[in-house]
C-alpha cells in the first residue's frame, strides 16, 4: 500500500509550467528516487508535496490525507519530513538549537525533545561534539547531517531529501547515503531527489526519471540502472555541473 500517492500534479512558477501532470507513489518502507537534470522539476515536486509551493492541480495523498490544501507546518505534523535543497540549517543558531527547533512540534514536552536530541547525538557523534557551535560554521557534510538530524527530530514517517549529497566530497557523500539507508532500515520511508543518478540508483528500490516536468521513465532501480537511455543521459560521461537545481 502506498504511503504517498501523487496524481496528475501540475505546478507553475509564474508563467512557466514547472510540473505538467506527474504521478508517482512511494510505498511504506521504500526508498524511492526522483532523478533528472537541472530544471527538470525535482525540487518543485518536493516543495509542492511538503506545502512550500502551491499545486495548480492534482492530488497529493499522504497516508489517506489530502495534502493539497494544507500549509507546510500542518504537513510536517502529519509525519512528512523535508530536508531541503542546500541544507538550510539556521546559520546563527547552535547545533543544539537547530535540533531543538526540529522538535518544535513537541515544544510543550521539552524532555521529549531532549531525549530525541541525545539519540541524534548518538547517531551523529560529530553533531554531539559540536552541539554548542553555530551551525553556519560547520562543514558542508556536518551541515547536511544536522539538516537530516533536525528533520529526524520530528519523527517523520516519510523523509523527503533534496540533493543531500550536493557539494559534498565523494567520501562524505557516501557517508550521507549510508546514513539514509540506515534511516530507512529504522522504518522511515525515503523519497530522495538526486542529480547524481549513479549513487541514487544504488541506494533506491525504485526510481522515476523527470524531464521538463514530466515523468519519462520509471521502474525498479536496478532495471533503470541498466536501461540504455538512463545510461546515456545520466550515467555516462562527465557528471553534470552540480549547481542549484530547479
Amino acid at each position, binding site marked *: 500500500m502506498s504511503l504517498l500517492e501523487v496524481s496528475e500534479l501540475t505546478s507553475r512558477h509564474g508563467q512557466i509550467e514547472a510540473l505538467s501532470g506527474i504521478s508517482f507513489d512511494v510505498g511504506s518502507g521504500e526508498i524511492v528516487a526522483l532523478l533528472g537534470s537541472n530544471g527538470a522539476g525535482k525540487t518543485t515536486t518536493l516543495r509542492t508535496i*511538503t*506545502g*512550500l509551493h502551491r499545486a495548480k492541480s492534482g492530488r497529493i495523498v499522504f497516508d489517506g490525507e489530502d495534502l493539497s490544501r494544507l*500549509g*507546510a*507546518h500542518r504537513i*510536517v*505534523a502529519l509525519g512528512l*519530513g*523535508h530536508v*531541503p535543497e*542546500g*541544507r*538550510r*540549517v*539556521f*546559520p*546563527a*543558531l547552535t547545533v543544539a*538549537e537547530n535540533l*531543538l*527547533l*526540529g*522538535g*518544535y*512540534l513537541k*515544544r510543550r514536552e*521539552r524532555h521529549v*525533545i531532549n531525549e530525541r536530541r541525545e539519540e541524534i547525538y548518538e547517531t551523529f557523534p560529530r553533531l554531539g561534539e559540536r552541539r554548542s557551535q*553555530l551551525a*553556519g*560554521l*560547520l*562543514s*558542508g557534510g556536518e*551541515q547536511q547531517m544536522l539538516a537530516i538530524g*533536525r*528533520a529526524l527530530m*520530528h519523527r517523520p514517517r516519510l523523509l523527503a531529501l533534496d540533493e543531500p549529497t550536493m557539494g559534498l566530497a565523494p567520501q562524505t557523500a557516501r557517508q550521507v547515503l549510508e546514513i539514509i539507508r540506515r534511516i530507512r532500515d529504522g522504518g522511515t520511508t525515503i523519497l530522495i531527489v538526486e542529480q547524481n543518478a549513479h549513487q541514487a540508483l544504488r541506494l533506491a528500490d525504485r526510481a522515476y526519471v523527470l524531464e521538463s516536468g514530466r515523468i519519462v521513465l520509471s521502474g525498479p532501480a536496478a532495471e533503470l540502472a541498466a536501461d540504455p537511455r538512463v545510461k546515456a543521459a545520466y550515467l555516462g560521461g562527465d557528471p553534470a555541473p552540480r549547481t542549484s537545481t530547479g
Partner: protein
Amino acid sequence: MSDFFQYLVNGLTIGAFLSLIALGYSMVYGVVRLINFAHGDIFMIGAFAGFTVLTTIGVTGGMAIPAVLAAVVVGSLATGVVGAGIARVVYTPLLKARQLSLFIAAIGVSLALSEGVKLLTGARFKSYPDALDGGQIMAGSVRVSYAQLVLVVFSVVLMAVLWLFVTRTVTGTAMRALAMDRDAARLQGINVERLILMTFLIGSVLAGAAGVMYGLYYTQISFGMGFLIGLRAFTAAVLGGIGNLPGTMAAGVLIGLIQSFAAGYISSRWTDVIIFGVLIAVLAFRPSGLFGERVVERA
C-alpha cells in the same frame, strides 16, 4: 562635573525607553524585513491608553502606585492588541507582495493612527497625571526622580524577560530562526504567520509600556509624539544593527546619552541634527550597525 552626572542619569532614562521602542523596529524587521513606520504611533497609543487609565483611576491618596501599574499593564496590552491586529489585517495579506507595498502600508497605518487619536481626543497636548508626585532622590548634587528610577528599572526588567524568552524558550528560538530562513522554519512545523503576529505583539507591548513611561517622565503627550520619538528609536535600531537585539538595546541607551549630552552641552535645538547625523553616518559607513552583523552567512 555634577552637570555631567546629571546628563548621564537623564540620558540613561531616555535611553531606557528608546531601547524598548527600538526593539520593536528591530524584531519586526528581523522576521518580515519591514521597517514598521507605524511603530512610533503604537508607542503614542500606549501613552494615551495609560493616560486614560490614570485619569480614570485617579492618582491621589494611596492610588498612585496601583494606578501606575494599571496604566503600564493596560497601556501595553492595548498596544499589543492594536499592533498585532494591524499586522493581521494590514501586513500579513501583503507578506507575499513587493517590499514597497508593505512599506507604504506602514506609512498609511502611521497616519491613520495619529490622525485617529487626534480626532478622538483633540489636537491639544495632554498633561499626564503626576502620579509619582515629583518625588526624587539626591545623590550629591545629582537629582534622580522616582519616575526615572521606575522607568529604568522597569525597562531593564522588560528587556531581561525578552532576552530570556528569545534565547531560552523554543518559541523564542523559533522567532530567531524565522528571521534567518522562513521556509526552513515552516519545515520544522512552525506556524510562521502566527509567529509573525506574535513578534508584532511583543514589539507593540514593549512600545506601549515605553509610551506610559514617557508620559510619566515628560508629563506631556500629544497625538504626534510618535513620529519624532519613533525616528530616534529607529536610529537606535539601525545603529545597533537592525535585527540584532543586544545591539539594539545598547544603541538605544547610546542615542539617549547623545540626546542628553547634546542638549546639555550644546543646545536642545541641535539634538536631532546630531542624532540624525549619526544615522546618516552609520548608514554611509557601517550599514550593518556599530556592532556588525551577528548573522553568520551559510558556509
